[in-house]
Each structure stands twice: as structure tokens, then as C-alpha cells.
């Protein structure tokens, strides 16, 4: 009876079941199958993250591709003290921020943004803030996020939208958890202020709601 010496599908099944950390250990040893599995496993979450930072699907995909190339090239720099997700997010986040900076340099005109905002404003006429669709919310966030610093924006996205813990966010952004909380507080305050300044119609409903809550 013949022996199975090598089977790609068998290897794939094996990699399916290993943890992210073991996958990265295998990649450090130069295992291409493990690297392929990492791409399969992490493309979704990394694209999600990059998309939230840069706001464009194609650009997010470019960032993820470069992230994986960087992961392979810097695989020996992965340290055991890192959480695999944190390490990957950190690489992708830095690339996304670099991309945003270079894009800001290229795009000085605000007209496309204004046009988009007009569309958003038209579509949200006479609706409660809490009733906006997520696409509209994303449009508003893009506008308001320009008032945030890079770190405030990152912290808000990682903590608020991605739901990571303060410790994880601190490791990705490269600061202390207490600083993450400060950035988050400042981001919330600025977003709230800008939201009420640029969309004053919502100020009434929020105040009314607050009063109603206070009266209960």
C-alpha cells in the first residue's frame, strides 16, 4: 500500500488548526504554507482596519498587501511578548497612517469632500441622529475625524469601532494605556463638539433627550 509522503491539502488542514502565534513561529522558520494561511486568515480583519483608517476599499487592499510583504520581511522581528494581532495591527496601522499623510499632501482640495457631504446632508434630512444609516455615519465621521489628531483618530477607531482593549490599543499605537484613555476622552469631546457645531439640528434632539433623561 502506498504511503502519503506529501499532500498540500493535508498541510492546509494542519495550518487551519494552529494558533496565530504558532503560525507566526512557523513563518519565522520560513514556512510558506503558514504564511499563506496567515494571509487567508488575516486579510479580512486587516482590510477592515485599513478601510476604517483610510476610508477607501482599494487603498485598504493595497495597504494590506504591503502589510503582508512587511510581515514576511520582518518576520524575525516578531517577539513572543507581542500578541500576534497586535503586531499585525501595528504594522498595518503604521502603513495606513503613512498612506494618509502622503494622500493629504496630494489632495489639498476639499471640493470632493464637500460634494460628498452635501450628498450625505441631503440624505439625512429631518431624521434623528440615531436613525442614520451606517454609510451616512461613515461620511459624517470622515468629516469630523479631520479635527482629531492622528493618535486620537486611531485610538477612537481601534477602541470604539474595533472594540480592542486599552492595553492592545496602547501596544499598537505605542503609548501607555492611560494615554489611550486620554486620547479617547479628547476624541469623544472633539467629536461631540464638532457634531453639534456642524449639525446643529442634532443639538436640539440631544439636549431634549438629555433633559428628558434628567427629568426621569
Amino acid at each position, binding site marked *: 500500500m502506498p504511503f502519503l509522503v506529501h499532500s498540500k491539502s493535508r498541510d492546509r488542514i494542519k495550518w487551519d488548526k494552529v494558533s496565530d502565534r504558532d503560525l507566526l513561529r512557523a513563518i519565522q522558520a520560513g514556512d510558506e504554507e503558514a504564511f*499563506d494561511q496567515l*494571509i*487567508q486568515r488575516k*486579510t*479580512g480583519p486587516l*482590510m*477592515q482596519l485599513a*478601510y*476604517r483608517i483610510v476610508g477607501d*476599499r482599494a487603498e*485598504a*487592499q493595497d495597504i*494590506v*498587501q*504591503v502589510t*503582508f*510583504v512587511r510581515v*514576511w*520581511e520582518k518576520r524575525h522581528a516578531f517577539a513572543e511578548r507581542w500578541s500576534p494581532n497586535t503586531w499585525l495591527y501595528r504594522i498595518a496601522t503604521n502603513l495606513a497612517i503613512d498612506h494618509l499623510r502622503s494622500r493629504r499632501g496630494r489632495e489639498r482640495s476639499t471640493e470632493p469632500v464637500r460634494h460628498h457631504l452635501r450628498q450625505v446632508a441631503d440624505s439625512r434630512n429631518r431624521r*434623528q*441622529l*440615531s*436613525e*442614520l444609516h*451606517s*454609510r451616512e*455615519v*461613515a461620511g*459624517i*465621521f470622515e468629516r469630523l475625524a479631520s479635527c482629531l489628531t492622528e493618535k486620537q483618530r486611531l485610538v*477612537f*477607531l481601534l*477602541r*470604539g*469601532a474595533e*472594540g*480592542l*482593549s*486599552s492595553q492592545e490599543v496602547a501596544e499598537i499605537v505605542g503609548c501607555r494605556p492611560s494615554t489611550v484613555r486620554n486620547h*479617547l*476622552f479628547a*476624541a*469623544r469631546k472633539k*467629536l*461631540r463638539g464638532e*457634531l*453639534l457645531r456642524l449639525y446643529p439640528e*442634532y443639538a436640539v*434632539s*440631544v439636549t431634549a*433627550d*438629555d433633559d428628558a*433623561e434628567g427629568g426621569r
Partner: protein
Amino acid sequence: MTCAELRQLAPDSLLASELEPVEHRRAAEHLRECPECRRRAVAADPAVLFLDLPLLEVTAADVTAVRSAVGAMRRARVLENETSRPLSRWWRHAAAAALLAALLLVPGTAPVEHEAGDGSRGIETLIDEGGFLASATEPSSIIENLNRPQARIYQLTEEDLSLVMIVDESLDL
């Protein structure tokens, strides 16, 4: 997650509370589905609105595209490294030594300066019919004809040997 659980979790703002990632996800899902809780949460902190940024749908085709692009980029990097790798110092020294030895060993060898049609000057070494390096002119004529103000000239003359080196001073470090 129920409405009561959510309101107990975050009386002031979901963003301010230190929820575990799993709890955070459940809270966000509940807000997406429950208009009343969403209204209350946004009223307490409008920034909570941005918990519900749209999710990107990543398909198997996206993963395949990323995989092939990463493969292509890695191959390109390897190729780039191979073609741009400078000659090692050892090889450069060996090549220089071999050239110098050839010039020293072959009788009557000397590089000559010539002027090209565009007025630029250069040095050439001719190979005679027998395959030996041979000079077109005598070294002394090279020095006489050289009119570059920024050149240093070195000449080494032995019995059957003439070696002339012309160094452009503008290239000095």
C-alpha cells in the same frame, strides 16, 4: 445582549467603559438592532454613533487578489535585491589588482587619451592584432596633449613598461 444589560453596562457612554472585546461586540450588535437603546446611547454621547461604522465585506476573491499581489511583490523584491546588489569589496579589489597586473606584465602597454567628436576627452587602450595590449601613442604625448586644468597625472616608467594614470581632481572627496 438585552436592553437592561446594555443600560447597566454603560450608563454614561459605551466608549468610556472598559468593555472586553467580546462584550463590546455584543453591545455594538445590540445597538445596531435596538433603535431605543441606540437613541439613548447617542443622546448620552453622540460619539457612540461612530461605533456603527460600516463593515467591509471581504470576499474570497479579495483574499486571492491579496495573495497573488503579495507573491508578485515578494518576487519583485527578490529580483530587485539580486540586480541591485553591489559587487563585494573583495571582488572589486581583485578586479582592480588583475587589471593592474595585466598592465604591468604586458610590454609597451599604455592607455591613451583621445578626444571624441563632442569635444569630451577619454582614455582608451587598444588591442593589437596579436591580442596584446598596445599603446597608440607614447605616454609623453598624452601628457603634452592633456589640457585639463583639474587633472593629476601619474606616470610609472620601467624598461618595457609605461603606465600613466590621469585623475580628475573634481572627483576628489
